[in-house]
């Protein structure tokens, strides 16, 4: 992994639950540019625990002077966002990995329709700057419950192709209405809660949009769960994965070599062979095929968990 130590240059409270962080190189060096939709993995040393969370970059992809992210505090999460909110302040050093893009714009599109729900606005903030710079036609729809909760409002420019839908103000986002009158060759991108993603996908299907013009990024973080035990055939270790720990984190804590990138069940880097499974794997990823999931012969340790007697992994 390519990572570097950056300095927290700004922290801004956007809403009671969302903070914006800006990272810069400690000696003011230029950071690699990126493409809209890219994310970085931020490493947090929280006592004994090393947390690594992925966040979409929200700053201008053409601006290498710094990287910005927006973090929503998840009090029922595993602790990464709480760490960012309560323990990180301006001037702190923080290790940040090089940007990776799993949610890139398809530049063949004649028009780009971006549909965001809640904190799912983050990848689109960078994409809309890229689209503006490239002078490509787009529209962006941003849905939030209320004005007070809509962190994106402070980050979005005023423009006719940017529309805000606040359900509390009776202006609920309707995916069908947005997609109904788009020109041929339009691509649609959606990021946010599962319900929104399914809603947009359903609308696209109902309108007979081709499959490959629909792009989505579910904001997936490893779900907490019951502790479980796993045995590693190559390293000969038996580990217990704690309720607030992912299997990947447990492997890393035991110094087992394993590749990773998105840590959110999307990129496929940490895919691991299952040698024996007596029980049920709770697959939370978007990577494995349904058949692979039901066969229980592979697991994505970044997000998936296990319940049962025995899980033997090829690690």
């Amino acid at each position, binding site marked *: 992994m390519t990572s570097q130590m950056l300095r927290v240059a700004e922290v801004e409270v956007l809403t009671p639950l969302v903070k914006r962080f800006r990272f810069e190189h400690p000696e003011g060096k230029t950071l690699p540019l990126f493409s809209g939709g890219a994310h970085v993995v931020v490493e947090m040393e929280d006592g004994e625990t090393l947390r690594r969370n992925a966040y979409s970059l929200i700053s201008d992809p*053409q601006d290498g002077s710094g990287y910005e992210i927006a973090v929503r505090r998840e009090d029922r999460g595993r602790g990464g966002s709480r760490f960012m909110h309560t323990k990180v302040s301006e001037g702190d050093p923080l290790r940040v990995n090089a940007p*990776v893009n799993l949610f890139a714009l398809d530049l063949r599109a004649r028009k780009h329709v971006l549909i965001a729900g809640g904190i799912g606005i983050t990848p689109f903030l960078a994409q809309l700057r890229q689209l503006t710079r490239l002078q490509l036609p787009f529209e962006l729809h941003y849905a939030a419950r209320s004005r007070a909760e809509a962190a994106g409002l402070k980050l979005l420019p005023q423009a006719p192709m940017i529309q805000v839908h606040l359900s509390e103000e009776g202006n609920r986002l309707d995916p069908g209405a947005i997609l109904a009158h788009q020109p041929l060759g339009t691509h649609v991108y959606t990021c946010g809660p599962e319900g929104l993603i399914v809603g947009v996908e359903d609308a696209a299907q109902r309108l007979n949009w081709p499959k490959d013009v629909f792009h989505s990024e579910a904001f997936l973080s490893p779900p907490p769960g019951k502790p479980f035990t796993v045995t590693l055939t190559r390293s000969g270790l038996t580990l217990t994965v704690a309720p607030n720990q992912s299997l990947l984190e447990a492997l890393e804590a035991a110094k087992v070599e394993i590749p990773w990138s998105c840590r959110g069940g999307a990129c496929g880097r940490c895919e691991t062979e299952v040698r024996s499974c007596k029980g049920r794997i709770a697959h939370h990823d978007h990577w494995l095929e349904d058949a692979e999931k039901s066969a229980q012969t592979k697991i994505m340790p970044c997000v998936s968990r296990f319940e049962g007697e025995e899980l033997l992994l090829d690690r």
Partner: protein
Amino acid sequence: MTMQFNDETFRDDYTYRNSPEAIRRFPFPFDQDSYMYSVNLEPHAGGREGTPFNKRFDVDEHYVSEMRDRAITLADDPLRCQSLPHMELAGWDFLELVMDSKAEDYPDLFSLTKDGDRWHWVNRPLGIEQRFTFLDPTTLPCGPLEYITRQTQGDHALLDQREGNLWMDAGMVTSQADWSLDFDVGMNFFEWHAPVPKAHEMGIFQRALKFLLALPLSKPSRRLNWTLTVNPRLDTSPENYHKWGPEKRTVTPENVGAKQHLRVELQTLWRLPRSNAIAFPIRGYLASMEDLTTLPKWGRRLHRVLRDLPDELADYKGFTVNRPMIVDYLSKFDDGVPTSAGIYPDETGL
């Protein structure tokens, strides 16, 4: 050190020659006495001083003449350079990568000055000076990919990444080992590799694609590939097979050492920042059997590799017809002595 550029041709009278220095630095592709496919990727992060692995985009004594040969090929067949409309941003990414790298790595040959988006590029070996606006194609004489690859040795493909695959949607291909950009443009990774024997069953392409999809920013990779070519010809394209295919029949036991060339590709892979595309430069090096056998380790090893190569690979690489003659010629340089590990010759300071 100021580099001397050869005045030479890659067609008709074939005046291409390697200096002793160019032979010593040749990227010999065999690290042992036999060869089989592998995903032999390693980080492209420098290498021994003086070798082609040392700089990001190697410039050598053949630079000026190679660019002249590219211009001749393009004048005959403009479709050797194509860029589908969505690949223009990747073209700019690649232009920036090459200009930044060359200006930093060869400051006596190239310079780049940036004032915001207003750039000033100087290419001394080719006598080019250009002021232009980055991302504004109207300020260059041609598209960004064509512009920079008319000044960069090797063929270049730009691969778009989408739908969990890579798509060859742009390129400049004038010195290829018998493949065609015009045929492959728009194909995905599995489609354009379909003609390669054996590797599919070995699962090589699945593994390679997985690696490439996760190729990180600022961490380029490289690998070597090779084939054999009769005469030092760059344009060994399917389009012009009628010009170079029959030359295979001109090889005799007397001229095989001079005519038969080992053609090595130094392939590098770069994640491009703005477009998220991958740049795939394929930089070719040519050395005759006579050149290579001046270094005893290489003479011995090349004989053993070509003698023992599986027939399918010799067929695919197109030298079955001359193989007995080549192996017979090389056998004179193989005294059976064991060879040392690695690709570098024993006799040089490299």
